[in-house]
């Protein structure tokens, strides 16, 4: 049993995010309101890696955007590190990663990575700040591309820039909405490996939305299964695989069992 795992299973770990009875209704004033989320209750602990899976339309992205204070829930409360989601966002504790890289094409790689610091009124001409950005660019494997423009980069490289931009201001919580969904299979696997490596290195609470079940099992401490219309927590599965995980983990009997049982669950939900 690794140190990491021992930490996860200890009972006095610090609660980071408390999702309490959260619901979200779209178009509430109209003739056909849509209940996207209903009574979601989840506790997420510090440094935990959580994946949210479920059939399409189950409100995975909606839930993540509620946590990130990008949309407001219509009921319930989200508590992050003792404050509201809005306070967490405003104090730069959160970092949201989108389905697309959302790079600003008129900015170089470096300038894109500096964007969050610029908004936080850091002096981005300061060599120390630039060093900080440079280090992150190195971490995501883009050394030498600081002055390239996004159009010169491949999809995988662009997504790495987006990761660097999300990491650079040292947030406490990563909220990732299928950040690699638009990439091809091979690149996606590579990026997942990167993500696992980075997570093992810097240990941040991460909520990862995906429709890729093997990916969720491989990366997570817990996998949350949402059922569709309205989105509700159907199951929470603890992934009891040792860390650090490697490519070999994918071949473990236990890994395969987790993957198969979760696939079964999601398929069953999709039929309903």
């Amino acid at each position, binding site marked *: 049993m690794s140190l990491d795992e021992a930490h996860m299973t200890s009972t006095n770990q610090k609660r980071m995010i408390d999702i309490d009875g959260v619901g979200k209704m779209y178009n509430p004033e109209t003739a056909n309101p849509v209940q996207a989320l209903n009574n979601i209750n989840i506790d997420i602990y510090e440094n935990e890696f959580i994946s949210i899976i479920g059939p399409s339309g189950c409100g995975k992205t909606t839930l993540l*955007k509620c946590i*990130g*204070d*990008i949309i407001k829930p219509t009921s319930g409360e989200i508590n992050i590190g003792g404050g509201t989601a809005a306070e967490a*966002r*405003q104090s*730069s504790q*959160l*970092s*949201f990663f*989108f*389905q*697309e890289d*959302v790079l*600003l*094409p*008129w900015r170089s790689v470096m300038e894109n990575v500096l*964007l*969050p610091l*610029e*908004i*936080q009124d850091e002096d981005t001409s300061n060599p120390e700040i630039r060093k900080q950005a440079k280090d992150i660019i190195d971490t995501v494997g883009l050394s030498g*591309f600081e002055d*390239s*423009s996004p*159009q*010169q*980069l*491949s999809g995988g490289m662009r997504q790495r820039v987006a990761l660097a931009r999300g990491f650079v201001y040292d947030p406490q919580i990563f909220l990732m909405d299928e950040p690699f969904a638009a990439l091809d299979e091979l690149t996606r696997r590579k990026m997942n490996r990167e993500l696992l490596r980075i997570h093992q290195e810097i240990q941040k609470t991460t909520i990862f939305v995906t429709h890729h079940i093997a990916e969720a099992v491989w990366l997570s401490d817990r996998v949350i299964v949402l059922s569709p219309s309205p989105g509700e927590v159907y199951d929470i599965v603890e992934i009891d695989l040792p860390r650090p995980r490697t490519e070999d983990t994918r071949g473990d009997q236990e890994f395969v069992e987790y993957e198969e049982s979760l696939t079964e669950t999601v398929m069953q939900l999709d039929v309903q």
Partner: protein
Amino acid sequence: MATETSNKASTQNLGSKAGEIISEYKYPAVFLVVFVGIWTFGVRIYSIPTYVLPTPLDILQSFQGELSNLWRHTRVTLLEAFLGWILGNMIGISLGAVMAEFQALKRSIYPYMVILRSLPVIAFAPLLIIWMGINQGPIIAAATITTFFPSLVNSIAGFSSTDRLTKELMHSLNASRWEVFRKVKLYNALPYIFSALRISVALTFVGAVVGEWLAGNEGLGYLILVANNQLATLLLFRALLVIGIFSTAWFGLLVVVESYLIDWDNQSGGGATR
């Protein structure tokens, strides 16, 4: 690796640049020669008098000794057209930015803008003269008005063109409204703004020439009016040619400036066009 490939591509570009230019201008050049030929030939064959239709050569020759006089009038019109263009675009672009940012304002005044826009400028001219007198004021105002509307429409479209995901990103980074505007919306609007600047070059000349017809005592529009009264067809053609040259050069200059300023916009041609 990416930089290496792009370097290679640019050297290749330099090598084939001349060939590219030739192949690009080959067709219009041939067309020009054929067109001028038919024109000249037709005038000669049917013995069309010069005051009805001079030959291209007649027109070119008539510039001799007229240049300084022509330049005096050209200067006047250029200034009017330029001021109208600057004013119309400044007002159009900034009002467009404000209207895109404040939807309530846009909804309140846009319908009236549409109605105003459907009125021909020439209908405003007498009013402008009553308000400002017979001088360059109403001429510049006419050029401003013709420039203003396409500029406004493009500006609204441009400042509204930022996609939802980028707005969500900026929100998640806790950017203020002003920061979103300055760091994102302004850049997204630039191709639309340049589109407006280009379109309005031709329009500002329309405004200036029409303005001069009604309130001018100098300028190329005024010259066209005089030429018309005197059946001085050569003079008329000279004035037209000068307007054509300057508005094309102006347009071309904008294309060059835009290509230097906006080097990221390779996917869209940039902007609404009306």
